[in-house]
């Protein structure tokens, strides 16, 4: 509820028709750079940031984020360091931070400990793409207990019935992947996409975040009025690779100007 309330309050502010959530792979290229990138994102108005704790088997990710996971791990970064960085970000910036990772990271850390620590840092939600609710009974119960939103995922392949089921477990917002496939490829926004978003709206009363392949001001403009949150992932990773952390601020600012 806490995260949903935050999102609704932000959306109620004047001239905020759509919120932005960005994605960071922790430790890629370094926590130093992550720190600077996040600062630029927050200063330029990003409302939510998902911080990915790297995993050696990022099955649902595309080449850019796969490489980012791998290179981060090659620096010998630990989960503990990622957690500490998450805590630091929550303390430094007054926006909503979420952890995104694969289930094994949480499982090996200890599911209860992961919730306890994250709660104490004020982490608002978890995105775990390989944990469907059927496998997540313990996780979902803890999410209720600790009031950390379990973010579930809608896909274009989700039936209306499946959407209802997912909504019954979800909190915070619904993460609608814009197309089939993995992160990073371009999404074509067309009539098919519109009817998918309509189905998403019917499926849940939670705010809708749309992600996968969103990279430009045009994309954000298109989503405004359809979705509540636009998710920028691979685009900022590529930007940092090509032009450095300094380029992030102007890019973020330009998305909604």
């Amino acid at each position, binding site marked *: 509820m806490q995260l949903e309330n935050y999102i609704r309050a932000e959306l109620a502010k004047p001239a905020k028709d759509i919120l932005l959530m960005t994605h960071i792979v922790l430790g890629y290229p370094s926590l130093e750079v992550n720190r600077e990138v996040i600062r630029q994102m927050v200063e330029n108005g990003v409302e939510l940031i998902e911080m990915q704790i790297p995993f050696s*088997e990022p099955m*649902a990710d595309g080449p850019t984020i796969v490489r980012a996971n*791998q290179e981060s791990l090659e620096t010998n970064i630990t989960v503990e360091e990622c957690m500490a960085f998450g805590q630091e970000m929550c303390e430094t910036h007054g926006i909503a931070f979420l952890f995104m990772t694969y289930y094994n990271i949480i499982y090996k850390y200890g599911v209860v400990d992961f919730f306890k620590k994250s709660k104490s840092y004020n982490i608002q939600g978890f995105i775990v793409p390989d944990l469907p609710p059927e*496998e997540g009974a313990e996780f979902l119960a803890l999410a209720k207990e600790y009031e950390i939103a379990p973010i579930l995922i809608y896909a274009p392949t989700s039936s209306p019935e499946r959407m209802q089921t997912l909504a019954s477990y979800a909190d915070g917002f619904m993460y609608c992947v814009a197309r*089939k496939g993995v992160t990073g490829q371009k999404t074509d926004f067309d009539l098919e996409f519109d009817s998918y978003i309509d189905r998403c709206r019917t499926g849940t009363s939670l705010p809708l975040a749309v992600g996968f392949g969103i990279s430009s001001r045009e994309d954000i403009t298109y989503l405004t009025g359809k979705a509540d949150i636009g998710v920028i992932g691979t685009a900022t990773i590529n930007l940092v690779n090509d032009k450095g952390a300094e380029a992030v601020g102007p890019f973020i600012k330009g998305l909604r100007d």
Partner: protein
Amino acid sequence: MAKPGYYGKWGGAFIPEVLFETFKELNIAFEAAKADPSFWQEYLHLMATYSCRPTPLTYAENISKHLGGAQIYIKREDLNHTGAHKANNVMGQGLLVKRMGKTRVIAETGAGQHGVATATMAAKFGFDCTIYMGEEDVVRQRPNVFWMEKMGATVVPVTSGTKTLKDAINEAFRDWVTAMDDTHYVMGTVCGPHPFPEMVAWFQSIIGTEAHKQIIEYAGKLPSRVYACVGGGSNAMGVFQGFLNTPEVELIGVEAGGLGVDSGEHAARLASKDGSPGVAQGYHTMFLQNDDGQMNDTYSVAAGLDYVGVSPILTDLWEKGQVRFESATDKEVLDALDMTMKMEGIIPALESSHAFAQAYKEAGSMGTDEVIIINMSGRGDKDIFTIAHAYDDPSWKEFIIKKGAGYAA
């Protein structure tokens, strides 16, 4: 009631949401096939007419005498079409794909045997075919890459992660989440999300059913022990299922000991102290991983055993004490291979040679009235480069150098 797809606490279906409907459809098709006796009849007919089934059970008389203990029988999965047990699973899934009306198949492969079998099936049934194979394995198993391509498959070398089997599985999933409408993922072993472990075990059970009948016919009794190598665990599950209801038969799974289970350079998930519970590649089992849950880079001379996880069904049987797990080192494996070639005229794959190595360690101290079965999961021809290299064979080297010079000219 136990959740479907669980074996004790192991297994499950940890799948991305985008595949939910695909798995639903697959489960329905699989359940329908199991409930339809004509499906299994069609499968048996296909395997008899396309793949030399039933495969023989060969008495290894010379080695039995040489070791002076148990009578050794070899289940000859090498004589399957394409040279390994992998065909059993692939042809079965091919029939399912036809029923589901899909037109494209994808697969991961380590040793390349599963890739070759899948490419063969795709050629026979008229499916498009893409095979994902770790870059390291493309080099290790070059002959199989050649045959896959000749049969019309596209082989994609996978360069992420450790460039071996687990990375090929990730890449196959990435293809599937994009192309699930017309594509079926032919999982090559008894791993991955439900229903794959159950499905692959079902198709592979043909090995054990035959072996049970054959050993009674030839030896007049049940074996004391049955040995199988374990990568993901499909050939092992295949032969073990013929003897799971006869507790007097001891089942032994043999993992890759690599340079030794204390060296860190191995792929023994259950037979070493290095495995721990985890969730990856869609299922819950024992993985070789670090304390943070990052998967380790495993090692074995045998590409098909060089894998971080192991079947949830086998992990459950191991936990319950129904299967004993051992490991064989690269060196033991090459010695066992050498002896099998010289004394029986049989060339097991490097993977299969792990089962031979463990059986040879034990057979001598067993009674001569006892009988054992070694499951020979595949033939060694595919390994010619690796084996020649490992034996540092001078005449082979000379041949390759000449051949290379010829191509370079």
